[in-house]
């Protein structure tokens, strides 16, 4: 039995389904595509598929990855063709290859995500944005509040302060289009830390003292990377 590693996109309306629903969708699509996948042992056998990292509901992605354990090795091209013909609109298998059994899991290798963040604002000029971002990025510490994991029998959540500065690898202003600001950012993802682009935007908002960026926003994950030091490699490279 071997493992197929695939890269796929999740864009358009399908971004509104949760990670759990995504997994169920993959199980059913693989079955519909008649792809011979391996099943787990036990009372309720299920397909063995693992994703690199969860994608928040509402976020689009052009670089998601998962490992699929196969019962029988079909060529990637054939699997891609069959799966793409049954997957719902917006989800598409982009690339893939068989990996060696001993290869580390996606979850253990992912270190960073790159995003395109489109936020709502009408009064900013390009110059203002560039200035704000420049000074934001020179700060040593950028503190946000995060909910702590709930303990047993705890009724109200506790908060802790986190410095997100080390989690921001890059943050750049791209353009203002139709009163929407487009930013590009690369953030730490995986076992060494995690920063959601929404939290970055909230932190930036409070830094410059405004609100409303997330009123009608759109976030696109561009890709996932396995080493944060140059040269960056995505999870298939």
């Amino acid at each position: 039995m071997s493992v197929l590693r695939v890269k796929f996109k999740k864009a358009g309306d399908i971004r509104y389904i949760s990670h759990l629903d995504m997994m169920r969708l993959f199980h059913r699509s693989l079955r519909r595509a008649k792809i011979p996948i391996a099943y787990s042992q036990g009372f309720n056998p299920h397909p063995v598929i693992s994703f690199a990292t969860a994608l928040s509901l509402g976020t689009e992605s052009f670089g998601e990855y998962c490992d699929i354990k196969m019962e029988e090795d079909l060529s990637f091209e054939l699997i891609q063709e069959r799966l793409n013909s049954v997957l719902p609109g917006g989800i598409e298998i982009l690339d893939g290859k068989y990996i060696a059994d001993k290869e580390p899991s996606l979850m253990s290798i992912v270190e960073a995500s790159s995003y395109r963040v489109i936020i709502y604002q009408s009064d900013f000029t390009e110059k203002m944005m560039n200035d704000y971002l420049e000074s934001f990025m020179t700060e040593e510490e950028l503190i946000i509040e995060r909910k702590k994991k709930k303990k047993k029998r705890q009724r109200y959540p506790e908060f802790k302060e986190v410095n997100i500065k080390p989690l921001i690898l890059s943050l750049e202003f791209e353009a203002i289009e139709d009163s929407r600001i487009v930013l590009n950012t690369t953030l730490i993802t995986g076992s060494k830390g995690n920063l959601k682009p929404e939290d970055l935007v909230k932190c930036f908002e409070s830094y410059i003292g405004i609100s409303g960026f997330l009123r009608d926003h759109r976030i696109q994950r561009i890709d996932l990377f396995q080493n944060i030091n140059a040269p960056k490699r995505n999870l298939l490279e």
Partner: protein
Amino acid sequence: MKVKIDDLLMHVEKPARYLGNEMNVVNKSNPEEYIRFAFAFPDTYEIGMSHLGMQILYHMLNDDSDIFCERVFAPNDDMEKLLRDNERPLFALETKSELKDFDFIGFTLQYELSYTNILNMLNLGDVPFYAKDRTEEDPLIILGGPCAFNPEPLADFADIVVVGEGEDVILEILKAYGTLKEKEFYTKEKFLHEIQDILGVYVPSLNHGEKLVKKRIMEDLDCSYFPKKILVPYIDVVHNRVVMEIFRGCLRGCRFCQAGMIYRPVRERSIESLKAIAKDLLDNTGYEEISLSSLSTSDYTEIEELIRHLIEINQENHIGVSLPSLRLDNFSKELVEEIQKVRKTGLTFAPEAGTQRLRDVINKNVEEKDLLKTAKEAFQMGYNTIKLYFMIGLPTETDEDILGISELVYKVIDEYHDIPKPERPKGLKITVSTSTFVPKPHTPFQWEAQISLEEIHRRQKILKEKLNHRYIKYNYHDGKTSIIEGVLARGDRNLSKVLVTAYESGCKFDGWDDHFQYHKWIQAFEKEGIAYKDYCEKKRSFEEPLPWDFIDSGVRKEYLVKEMQRAKDGIITEDCRTSCSGCGISHDFRSKRGVC
């Protein structure tokens, strides 16, 4: 008009409820060129998407080149608030068109406590409640489903009511509409006149109960429509699996059961067509489970062969087979062992009453020794979870019958203890659920009194005390919902104004404990001068005219009277396959593959 919702989706729970892009969805370009039908389910997405009838009609209508059918569900509270705050109307999922854009809105009436949701959905769609207030521009409102067998509480809201099985009738109604529109002769009045004589159609504005309306039946299920593909939701819904209907009707004739009467006669699909349907549906959905649907699954003539076949073809794909509605008396140990090979499922039994005397009264022909034997076999097979369903408040019920429920449960526990420890599973869990009996139209108990709220609480309390045991979990419903259900079930046209008043005071989602507001219902009855207890707690005489007398279910009133007498005498009636009890359904009907 298309309703904009993309700016709302990130602010509601489970936005996938509103996307309308599920696997196997149908979308047609230029929707205005079709006869537009909105299939409206007056409950949440999760409930509505589990309904097989919707799946059948949705695909059947959309297979027709002149019709475009879309879905509408009751929005959850968060979405409703956003729609109202932003002054946007309720929309259909496929094209996001508002309700007013449709030619027809068809509501399915699955349970009485969904009636206020119908009003809420019309209100959200800016469609007037009363048929008399709607203009030529407004959509026509069609009602159907089991509760349409007493349509009177909703009659003033409906333009058309479909009585019986809807497949053919709906197509005939829509075709008549299309023809009139094409010839440019259409007026609402002309149209309603034209369709009122279609078998199974009731037009409340033209018939105030003086003309008999006969129910519609699909004679041969093998020739009636069943979809090759069904909608597969992204989010988890109540029945998240392939549901395959194996037959309609029920052999058994339980005297409390409305479904057992109104869906007569028994008509089976052939095993060949079921095999083909199962293959198509599993291939086209990717579901991991198939469930057989009917009122009493083990009564299907070739049930063993069917299950063996389904298990055989699905084993390597790890697709499970589940069987709801199993009866105790012909439950086969071998069959259950087969099913367990793929996926473990729970075991559910419905003895309905606690003593043999009362089970004879209701004609539930299940014996205690069968139940205990089956429970024992289940424990030996490794089951440690069993669900038992009962009703309280059945006609002639005494405290002895109530205590009989708990005695029966403890006998099941004894069976478990009788098995030596190493041979039985650990952690026995018995879930006992009681529902309150509500007399329903077209059943032998339709004249009976429903027990009062105080009495419901008293009987529940007895069981609560008796069933306090570490192995037992006792579930019961709030008795107040049963009172309102009882009033609406046997209600008349006077109740439409109560429905509006209750809705306007804030009643909706009455079937949900967290939404149900009993005091508002009682206030609405008082305000409209309705003595609601007369509807549910008063015993009716055989001579008294009933609001649903003009609806002909095919089962004769004389038969219902005879069955009521036999119930009083504790005489059971055998199932239809063993001997015909002359209910009347065979009078003008001969099934090709069934019992009559």
